[in-house]
């Protein structure tokens, strides 16, 4: 096949538009497509609705003022439980929020992937997830039980960003870590999925066991970006662990006056090549120890 989906990160992010609803794969500080997130930080994009099992992706986008609305269940960096820039944005009331149970969130992505308007769930009933969200409605079983569920609305995405261990140029991807999380559902829920990849192949041909690491079909992938160390400073199993030193410095920057601007000037605005050099290069990243939970 001669067609290719390969683009640079800048070209890929240039496909996005102000006001879009953008899903971000990974979980907390695990396998986040940070190279793509940094490219958004460098772009003029604004007024985004971000849909994420949030980690520093959400924090940075909040810090840079890119977020109009956050659809989420949590934001955390695990070892640093509270994400400082998310907290600032949330506490200043400058972002709109839609807060869901982790499982409801999955259910919303799944509904979108099935092109359905909602899926019912018990999760969220009798809590403020329901009471504080005017968008949410309930639905009663049409059978004798008559049980009332939350009708979790589809979380339809204009775009999804996902970082994978390996991909080829037409969007066949492999996730080699212990857990796919919900990246497959982000891809299904989205009409435009941008994959960044640690390793880029021309064309994947693998054995059967390896093929099982393919978590979503290539027709779900519109764009492939080659981004080695592209999940840094988050954890990409089995390639590299969290960069705790970096996350600590990032976390500390939030306590300084103008801290975000300093962080952005040092690590983001310099471009991805300089970023990687500043964090110690691929050699140091590849040696970051895998976390023990």
């Amino acid at each position: 096949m001669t067609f290719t989906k390969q683009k640079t990160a800048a070209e890929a992010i240039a496909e996005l538009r102000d006001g879009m609803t953008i899903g971000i794969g990974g979980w907390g500080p695990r396998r986040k497509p940070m190279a793509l997130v940094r490219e958004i930080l460098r772009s003029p994009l604004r007024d985004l609705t971000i849909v994420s099992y949030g980690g520093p992706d959400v924090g940075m986008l909040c810090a840079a003022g890119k977020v109009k609305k956050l659809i989420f269940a949590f934001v955390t960096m695990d070892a640093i439980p509270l994400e400082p820039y998310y907290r600032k944005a949330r506490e200043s009331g400058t972002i709109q929020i839609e807060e869901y149970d982790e499982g409801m969130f999955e259910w919303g992505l799944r509904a979108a992937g099935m092109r359905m308007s909602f899926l019912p769930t018990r999760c969220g009933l009798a809590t403020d997830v329901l009471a504080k969200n005017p968008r949410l409605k309930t639905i009663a079983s049409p059978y004798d039980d008559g049980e009332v569920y939350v009708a979790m609305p589809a979380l339809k995405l204009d775009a999804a960003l996902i970082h994978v261990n390996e991909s080829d140029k037409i969007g066949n991807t492999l996730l080699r870590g212990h857990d796919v999380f919900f990246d497959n559902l982000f891809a299904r829920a989205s009409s435009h999925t941008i994959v960044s990849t640690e390793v880029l192949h021309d064309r994947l041909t693998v054995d059967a066991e390896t093929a099982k690491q393919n978590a979503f079909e290539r027709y779900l992938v519109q764009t492939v970006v080659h981004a080695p160390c592209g999940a840094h400073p988050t954890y990409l199993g089995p390639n590299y662990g969290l960069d705790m030193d970096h996350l600590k410095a990032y976390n500390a920057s939030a306590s300084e006056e103008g801290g975000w601007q300093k962080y952005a000037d040092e690590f983001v605005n310099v471009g991805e090549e300089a970023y990687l050099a500043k964090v110690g290069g691929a050699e140091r990243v590849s040696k970051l120890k895998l976390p023990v939970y």
Partner: protein
Amino acid sequence: MSDATLAELMITAASETWRNNGELLASGITTIPRLGASLAKMTHSPELLMTDSEAYLVSEPAPLGPRAADYVPKFEGYMSFDRVFECVWGGKRHAMIGPTQIDRWGQTNLSCVGPDYAKPKSAVLGVRGLPGNSINHINSFFVPAHNTRVFVAGEVDMVSGVGYKAERWGAGMKRDYADIRVVVTDLCVLDFGGPDHAARVISLHPGVTFEQVQAATGFPLIAIDNLGETALPTAEQFAIIRKLDPHNMRGMVLKGNPPAIKAAA
């Protein structure tokens, strides 16, 4: 073990809540709950399922912190996050987490603190899995600093986990699977087994009085009949705790790592 620390006492108390649960997933989140679940599995309830806190089921609880180079986890199965949700929805789990606030109805908050949800005084984690956990399976809680900021006078600021407040439950909503067991704090063990699910103190940690607990709690408490002391870890339990936590991470949870037996005031 009269020289046990308060953290060790709390671990031992936590482990009791997983007794006679049958075969289900025991999820203790953060150091003390995790050690409590691990201790339960290593002693009275080997049938419990447990993960490596990442993605696999292990037949032997994984120790906390950095491990010897030759440590090999004993994997017996798989438990990716989507499987955890399926487990939750199926009800085969007893989790213990540390919420930011708990109210008299057993409702919990992990999202944000303050009267204005749109502009909270303090943003915490978000509701995480609390809504789904609390309505689907057994839950217990852990409170490292028992005070009226945690055990609030009114309703928690953002109800993340369901409780027994009738007004929160609309017609047709299924309450049958919600089941709050205990709250293990640095002062006592509580449950919601009083009349109409009122909060009760079911054991006091050594040297703590009921009045102290009540003063640190924003809502009225009941003492159970013959209110006794929380049991100290036995020598066997203590040895297992040490093995499960070789770097003494439990010693960093409570301020000053106090002893289990509170010195007289």
